[in-house]
């Protein structure tokens, strides 16, 4: 028996909300396809676990979230979060990304460095069913602002699982950084795209020989800095797609290099450092 893995969804939510290692994953009972109503219903439950009784303002224009209405690949759903600096001149301190129906609904929490100048973050998610994707932005005064978008991710043979496991294990830990020059298309600031090779494995599967659950194995924390100044940090889970990938704009300061450090749930630490490219300043 794997009773230790049968933890409740609530305990799991609490664990992920508090940033505790997800050593165990509860299994969602099979159910009919989710709808906007049922997704919202799940969120009503979730909200208190993640944010307590704090007030969350919805659709007030501080933050926006964009994803395809129908996911092409349930394992790779591109999502773009944008913050409107006009509505929050002091910027934001954190972004929490939630997929209501996923077994691990808190996909990631991003902490934004002071003066990092980040106004958008794009990443890719695993989405297990029809679901709202939500982003909750926190402003320096502690205010919470939410935006949501509904994604239909279900059907066909696409599944939110690793595609090429041999390759994923062979290349694990490789990092790649792309630097994009400032252009009107990206809001006039340069962008970074950090990519990490990692299966970001869900741990939802059983080993076919032993029948024990394979422990989850994923990137747990990520810190990105430039010139020793914190730009972005993330606490993530299994709802981030394999080969975690983050693209965001930022404000360059000085000429210091860009560094990234990621840790996974097996305690492995992955480091990368890249000189700052001339990004059209």
């Amino acid at each position, binding site marked *: 028996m794997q009773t230790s893995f049968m933890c409740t969804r609530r305990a799991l939510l609490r664990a992920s909300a508090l940033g505790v290692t997800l050593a165990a994953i509860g*299994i969602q009972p*099979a*159910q*009919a*396809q989710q709808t906007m109503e049922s997704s919202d219903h799940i969120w009503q439950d979730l909200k208190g676990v993640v944010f307590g009784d704090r007030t969350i303002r919805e659709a007030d224009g501080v933050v926006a979230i964009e*994803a*395809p209405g129908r996911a*092409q*690949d349930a*394992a*790779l759903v*591109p999502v*773009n979060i944008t913050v409107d600096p006009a509505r929050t001149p002091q910027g934001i301190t954190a972004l929490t990304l939630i997929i209501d129906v996923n077994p691990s609904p808190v996909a990631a929490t991003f902490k934004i460095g002071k003066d990092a100048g980040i106004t958008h973050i*794009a990443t*890719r998610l695993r989405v*297990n*069913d029809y679901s709202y994707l939500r982003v909750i932005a926190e402003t320096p005064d502690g205010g919470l602002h939410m935006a949501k978008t509904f994604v239909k991710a*279900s*059907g*066909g*043979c*696409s*599944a*939110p*699982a*690793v*595609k*090429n*496991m*041999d*390759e994923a294990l062979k*290349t694990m830990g*490789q990092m*790649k950084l*792309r630097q*994009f020059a400032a252009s009107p298309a990206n809001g006039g600031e340069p*962008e970074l795209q950090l*990519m990490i*090779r990692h299966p970001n494995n*869900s741990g*939802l*599967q*059983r*080993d*076919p*020989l032993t029948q024990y659950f*394979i422990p989850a194995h994923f990137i747990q924390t990520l810190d990105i800095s430039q010139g020793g100044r914190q730009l972005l940090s993330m606490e993530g889970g299994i709802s981030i*797609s394999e*080969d975690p*990938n983050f*693209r965001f704009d930022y404000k360059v300061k000085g000429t210091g290099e860009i560094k990234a450090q990621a840790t996974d749930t097996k305690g492995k630490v992955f480091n990368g450092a890249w000189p700052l490219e001339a990004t059209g300043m």
Partner: protein
Amino acid sequence: MKRPALPIDPARRRLIGGLAWLGAQAALMPLPFGAAALAAAQPPLALKTVAEGVLAFEGVVELETPRNEGAVANLGVVVGDDAVAVIDSGGSVVQAKALIAAIAKATAKPVRYLVNTHMHPDHIFGNAAFRDIGATIVGHRNLPRALAARGPYYLQSYREQLGPALMTGVEIVPPSVLVEDTMQLDLGGRKLELKAWPAAHTDNDLTVHDPESGTLFAGDLVFVKHLPIVDGSLLGWMRQMDQLAAIPASRVLPGHGPVPSLWPEALAGERRYFEALAADLRKAIAAGTPMAEAAKTAGQSEAGNWELFDAYNGRNATTAYAELEWE
């Protein structure tokens, strides 16, 4: 009540001999029963004769729906002197039982093997019916791992897509005999050559070649007419095109598309599509175009050449974008 005699006794000894190479584990497996005994109630599936001793079911080129009962994949049957091998079990137990009934009509020989060409539901959801008639299930070394990762999700999402009635009896049944690289299956006077491929359509693709008739059962490594689906590695698939083409067969059962198709001519369409898709994606990635944007345009020059293009091209572009970004 008198039990009906199972018409397998003479074959039994030969079967045990044939299975000896599988080792001790195989000896513990149930012996294949005559298919007729268990599938008599099911109306038989319409099979085409492709060659001497080779039968096939041609799936419809459609998305899986309750109306087509998920019967979209091509399925193969090879009859040897002693036994039968089936290539893929179909998209439901209903379809698998109808296939078993059709085999029983064509031959009294027992179904000794079910070969799974890869993990997708339209090819493996009938596995339980073949297990229940005692067939040994054979698959790629990576298939159990892939099924473990996807099985529960497939069972849930297909219940939504196909409806509970068609999902009755569907179980995720992994293979018990795994192909590391190559393997021969002896059906008596006829040896099938199995090959496990590196990641391409999926990371658990297996082909079956019957040299006797010159027929290749390609699974979803070959799509004709139906847009190919990338769920493993586009680059891997492109890299092994030449090696695939070198298989000395004269006809192919593609995973989806006309049965049979000419070999290796059947590869031309997907080869051209992959090259167009990869070229478009490489351009988009170099230009910094985000994934969601690139997925709307990449590969569109191929739209007129395929059925189900709109259903799958965006998905292929999304999947391949993530892979090509690492080049």
